[in-house]
């Protein structure tokens, strides 16, 4: 039975992708893209990758979808050049088929049952101080990747923030319609609870800084849209400290062993677990703040609406 499910899912993912790129109107494309994201989250679940399903649905689909939808209002509804080239060019289809065939040939040539580094991770999981293998790999065995990845987040936040100058950020005016206000008041505590749980469970189950950060950011976006909270500005020190405690802590933990003659990121065995948890906690705030900074604070001018914010 599940073979059928996998087959259908695997088939309709690329089809949906093709549709996203083929539709003419942008908003339709973005909606299809969100659907595509949810379907791929389902795919992650089928491939027994709960961590990724969580992050994909929260960040990959939720936040990116919201971001794209928000941007649509800036770019005109259906840009002329897309309509001009409405009919698909034949070579595109041919190119997709050719590249899929070639890559597929390589996929099928892959060994069908190589366990990869799974057994090795399994063997040394206790030394990592964390029980959940993915968190062990993410924050201990390959902790260096995560350190650099936090830098990637910071750089992207800096780049996106630098491009939205002060003039675009209005001051939050209260007195918005009650429905969203009520929704926000009800949702926020639950969100905080879920995020906290996710950070804690990361130690022995699917979860961790990324998932918790994404959930928090989701809450923050709702607060932003309902004008409960102004967009985080890099100039205020609270935002800076919230953003940078995580990275500073992580760098501190990474560099500390160097002073005692050990290697970079070599967490001492006995309290590796607690160190990882503390770092993850701080990183959650950082990730939430970064994802929030991607979001412009303005309510976009509907086409023709007067009153530039």
């Amino acid at each position, binding site marked *: 039975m599940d073979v059928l499910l996998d087959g259908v899912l695997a088939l309709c993912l690329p089809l949906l992708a093709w549709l996203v790129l083929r539709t003419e109107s942008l908003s339709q494309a973005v909606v299809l893209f969100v659907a595509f994201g949810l379907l791929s989250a389902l795919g992650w679940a089928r*491939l027994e990758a709960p961590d990724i399903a969580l992050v994909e649905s929260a960040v990959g689909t939720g936040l*990116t979808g919201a971001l794209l939808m928000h941007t649509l209002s800036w770019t005109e509804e259906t840009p002329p050049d897309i309509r001009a080239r409405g009919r698909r060019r034949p070579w595109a289809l041919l190119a997709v088929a050719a590249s899929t065939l070639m890559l597929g040939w390589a996929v099928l040539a892959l060994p069908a049952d190589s366990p*990869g580094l799974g057994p090795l991770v399994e063997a040394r999981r206790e030394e990592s101080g964390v029980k959940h293998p993915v968190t062990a790999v993410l924050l201990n065995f390959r902790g260096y990747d995560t350190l650099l990845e936090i830098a990637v987040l910071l750089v992207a936040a800096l*780049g996106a923030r630098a491009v939205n100058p002060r003039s675009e950020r209005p001051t939050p005016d209260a007195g918005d319609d009650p429905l969203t206000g009520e929704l926000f008041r009800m949702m926020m505590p639950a969100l905080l609870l879920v995020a906290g749980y996710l950070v804690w469970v990361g130690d022995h189950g699917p979860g961790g800084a990324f998932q918790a950060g994404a959930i928090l950011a989701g809450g923050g976006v709702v607060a932003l849209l309902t004008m409960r909270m102004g967009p985080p500005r890099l100039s205020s020190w609270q935002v800076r400290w919230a953003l940078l405690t995580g990275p500073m802590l992580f760098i501190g933990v990474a560099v500390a062993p160097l002073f005692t003659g050990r290697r970079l990121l070599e967490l001492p065995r006995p309290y590796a677990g607690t160190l990882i948890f503390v770092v993850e906690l701080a990183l959650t705030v950082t990730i939430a703040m970064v994802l929030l900074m991607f979001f*412009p604070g303005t309510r976009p001018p509907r086409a023709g609406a007067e009153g530039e914010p």
Partner: protein
Amino acid sequence: MNPWAVYALSGVAMFSVGLVGLFSHQHVVKRILASNIAGSGVLIVLVALARRAPSGVPDPVPHALVLTGIVVSVSSTALGVALARRMARLRADAARASEPPPGSGGEGP
């Protein structure tokens, strides 16, 4: 039959759709969507590879790689979207500034 091969093939197909879409479209948002789709394709291939372990427990290393991959692709998408929005605004201001501006002059960056 272990379903990893099916997902890997679909991931590869998505990658091809995304890549070709990226190079055949002009509009910025469409190209960003295409790069996201290509990114998901690659990540699905990675996780499909992890699923091949005969012991049934998937190999955690690709999972960690994909987590990093998703965060990286989100960052680049967010940056791309921010640039696109800023450019659209500047072009709108420039367009408004070129015809006789009713009143609201374009504000400096």
